[in-house]
C-alpha cells in the first residue's frame, strides 16, 4: 500500500488553506504536507532552524479527507507516512489570491500520486472551469517540534485584530522586536541590541494594557527578542480564522510559541528568541550585529563560564545555561567550532560528540549531520515517523534525560505539533 492523501474543500475553506500557506511562506521556502489521522499538517522550518510553523487542519475542516500511510513489508512491518516536501515557489502562486479563490472556486480537490511524486490540486471554478495543477514533491521526512507550551510561565491571549492594529503602528525597520512583560504591562519595542549599533536607527516602543488581552498571565517578568517577520506572518493568517492568538513564552533563549486553536484547525509558530538579556553584563563578543545580519545566534556555554558567543550566520534555538545537564562537555567543542565556521547550518563540524543516534533523523537533511546542531535540533525537533514509540526512545534521549521523569510521548507530557 502506498502513502497517499486525498481531500476536498469548498471555496471558503480554500481561502483559509491559502492563507495558511501564505503564512508559512514567511517562515521558509519549503512546505511539508503531512497527513495523519489527526488531519493534514502543513509544516515549514526556516533554513537556520530558528522558526517553525505548523498548521494542522483537522479532518472535519475538509469536505472529505482520506489518507493512508505506506507499509513496508519487512521483518518489522514499519509504516511510513507520506513524506512530501514542496517548494513554496511552486505552491504559493497557486493560492495567490485567497480572497478571489473564495469567490471563484466552488470546490478544490487535493490528492497525491505517490508513484509519480506528484501532488495534484484541482480547482472547480464557476462557469464550469476546471484548473489543475501538478506539483512534484520531494520525498522528505517532515520535521516536528516538541514544545511544551502549557508549561510556559507566561501566557497571553489576545484578539488578532488588536495585535494587528498594534503591529501596524509599530513600523520599525528592524527585523527584531523585543517583548517586555511584567504582570502589569506589555511592551513591544525595537530590539535594543540592534539599535545600539546602528547610529541611524529609529527606536520604537508601544504599550498595550493588560485589560486588552483575553488572558494575561505573567509568571516571570521577562524581555524576549525575536524576529518580527514571523509574527506578522502569523497575524495575517489569524485574521482569517477569527480565533484569539495565544502567546507562550518564558525567559530569553527559550523559544516562544504563537498558537491559534479553533475547532477546525490548530496553528503553531515556534520562534527562537535571543538568549541574551540586555540587563546582564555582556561580553564584548556577544551580539555584534551588523546591519545586514539577521538574528545573531547566541550559544550558551555551561553556566559557570557564562560566555556568549556570536557567530555570523549561526542561528539556532538555544536554551539558557541553567539546565546544564543538557549540554555536557561537547558544548565547549561546539562553541569553538561555531566561532570558526561561518555557517554551521550548512557545514559539517569536525566535532564527534553526539548522543543522538542517526536513526532518529532524516537522512536527507544535511544539517543534521552536524552533531552540534543536532543537539539543539533534536531537543525540539524530531523526524516524524509513524512508529512514535521507537522513534522517541532513540532521538529524544537528550530530552528524556533532561526531564525529571521518564515520560514518553504517550503520556502526553510533551505536546507535539
Amino acid at each position, binding site marked *: 500500500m502506498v502513502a497517499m492523501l486525498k481531500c476536498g474543500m469548498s471555496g471558503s475553506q480554500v481561502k483559509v488553506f491559502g492563507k495558511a500557506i501564505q503564512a508559512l511562506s514567511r517562515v521558509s521556502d519549503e512546505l511539508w504536507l503531512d497527513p495523519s489521522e489527526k488531519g493534514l499538517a502543513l509544516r515549514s522550518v526556516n533554513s537556520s532552524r530558528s522558526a517553525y510553523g505548523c498548521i494542522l487542519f483537522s479532518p472535519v475542516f475538509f469536505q472529505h479527507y482520506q489518507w493512508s500511510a505506506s507499509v513496508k513489508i519487512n521483518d518489522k512491518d514499519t509504516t511510513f507516512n507520506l513524506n512530501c516536501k514542496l517548494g513554496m515557489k511552486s505552491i504559493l502562486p497557486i493560492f495567490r489570491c485567497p480572497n478571489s479563490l473564495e469567490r471563484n472556486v466552488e470546490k478544490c480537490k487535493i490528492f497525491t500520486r505517490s508513484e509519480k511524486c506528484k501532488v495534484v490540486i484541482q480547482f472547480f471554478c464557476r462557469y464550469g472551469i476546471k484548473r489543475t495543477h501538478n506539483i512534484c514533491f520531494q520525498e522528505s521526512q517532515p520535521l516536528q517540534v516538541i514544545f511544551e507550551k502549557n508549561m510556559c510561565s507566561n501566557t497571553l491571549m489576545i484578539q488578532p*485584530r*488588536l495585535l494587528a*492594529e*498594534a503591529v*501596524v*503602528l*509599530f*513600523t*520599525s*525597520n528592524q527585523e527584531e522586536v523585543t517583548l517586555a512583560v511584567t504582570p502589569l504591562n506589555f511592551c513591544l519595542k525595537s530590539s535594543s541590541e540592534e539599535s545600539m549599533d546602528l*547610529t*541611524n*536607527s*529609529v*527606536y*520604537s*516602543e*508601544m*504599550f*498595550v*494594557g493588560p*485589560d*486588552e488581552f483575553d488572558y494575561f498571565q505573567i509568571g516571570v517578568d521577562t524581555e524576549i527578542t525575536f524576529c518580527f517577520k514571523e509574527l506578522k506572518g502569523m497575524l495575517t493568517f489569524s485574521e482569517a480564522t477569527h480565533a484569539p492568538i495565544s502567546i507562550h513564552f518564558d525567559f530569553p533563549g527559550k523559544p516562544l510559541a504563537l498558537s491559534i486553536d479553533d475547532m477546525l484547525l490548530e496553528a503553531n509558530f515556534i520562534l527562537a528568541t535571543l538568549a541574551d538579556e540586555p540587563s546582564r553584563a555582556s561580553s564584548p563578543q556577544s551580539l555584534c550585529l551588523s546591519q545586514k545580519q539577521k538574528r545573531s545566534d547566541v550559544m550558551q556555554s555551561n553556566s559557570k563560564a557564562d560566555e556568549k558567543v556570536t557567530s555570523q550566520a549561526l542561528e539556532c534555538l538555544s536554551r539558557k545555561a541553567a539546565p546544564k545537564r543538557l549540554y555536557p562537555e561537547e558544548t565547549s567543542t561546539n562553541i569553538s567550532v561555531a566561532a570558526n565556521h561561518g555557517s554551521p547550518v550548512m557545514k559539517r563540524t569536525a566535532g564527534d560528540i553526539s548522543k543522538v543516534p542517526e536513526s532518529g533523523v532524516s537522512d536527507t537533511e544535511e544539517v543534521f549531520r552536524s552533531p552540534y546542531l543536532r543537539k539543539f535540533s533534536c531537543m525540539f525537533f524530531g523526524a516524524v515517523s509513524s512508529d512514535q514509540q521507537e522513534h522517541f526512545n532513540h532521538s529524544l534521549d537528550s530530552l528524556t534525560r533532561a526531564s525529571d521523569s521518564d515520560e514518553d510521548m504517550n503520556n502526553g507530557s510533551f505536546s507535539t505539533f
Partner: protein
Amino acid sequence: MKFRAKISSKGFIEVFIQLSGTVAKLAKVCVLRVCPDKLCFSSAGSTPVRADRLWCEVGRGALFRQFHMEGVSEELNEIYLELTSEHLFRAVKNARNAASLKLQLTKKRRPCLTVAVELASCTGHTRVVVHDLPVRVLPRILWKDCLKPRVRACDVSVYLPALKTLKSIVEKMANMGDYMLVEANRNGQMNLSIETDTVSIKSYFKNLGNPPESTLATPQNRDQERMVQVWVDKRKLLQFFEGQQINPTMAVCNILSNTLLHLVLVHEDVSIQYSIPAS
C-alpha cells in the same frame, strides 16, 4: 533648546502625513527648521546648483493645536535638525486614525525627534506608540545652507490643472522615455510631452489661467502664445505628484526657459515648493 508640538485633528494629521510623504520622496535627508511661527522642511545641506531642491513650510497655526519652541538663543530663536525623512514618514504613515500626533525634541542617548502617536483602539482603550527618530542638531555655521531658496525670475507662470488628472497623465506618460518636456504660455496653456524613437505623446491643457504677473518677476512684451519650455527628469516630476492626495488651494508652475521648473503647491498655511533643474 525645546520643541513640542501636537496635532489633534484627524484632517490635519492627514495633511502632515502627506507632507512627510512628499518630503520622504523628494529629499532623503531633510532639514527641519523650527521657527517660532512655523516649521520648514528642506533638502539637506548645500545642494549643488544643478540639483533639485525642496522647500516646505507649515505655519504654526495651520496644523498644530499646541506648539512651543525655544531656539538656540534669544537672538537666534530657531532650531535646525537634520534627519532621515523616511524615518519620519514611517513613524506617522499609519497614524491616519490617530487621536493625536505629538512631536518633541528629546534627548535619549542622543538627540531625537520623538513622535508619539495616540490611537483609540477598537476596544475603546487608547494606545500610544512612541518612535525616537535620531536627529543631528545643526550648528549655526551650517544654517546658511538651509535657508529658503530665493525666488528666481521666471519666464512664465501658469496655474496647474487638477492634481489628480495631472498625476495620472504624468504616470501614464512616464512609462516611455526618461525626460519630459514641460511648456506653458501666458495664455493659460500648458503642454506635457514625452518622446522615444518610436512614439511621442503630448498632452494639452487649456484655460488654466496665469497668476497675476509682478513687474519684477517677468519681463514685459512677450508674446502671449509663445511656449516657454524646459526638459526635466520624469522621475522627479512623478515623485512630486505621487502621494499628493489633498487638492491644494493654489498650484502654480513657473518655468525659466530651458533652465528650471519650479512647482508650488499651497494649501491654507502649508506650502510645498520644488525646483527641478533642466536635464
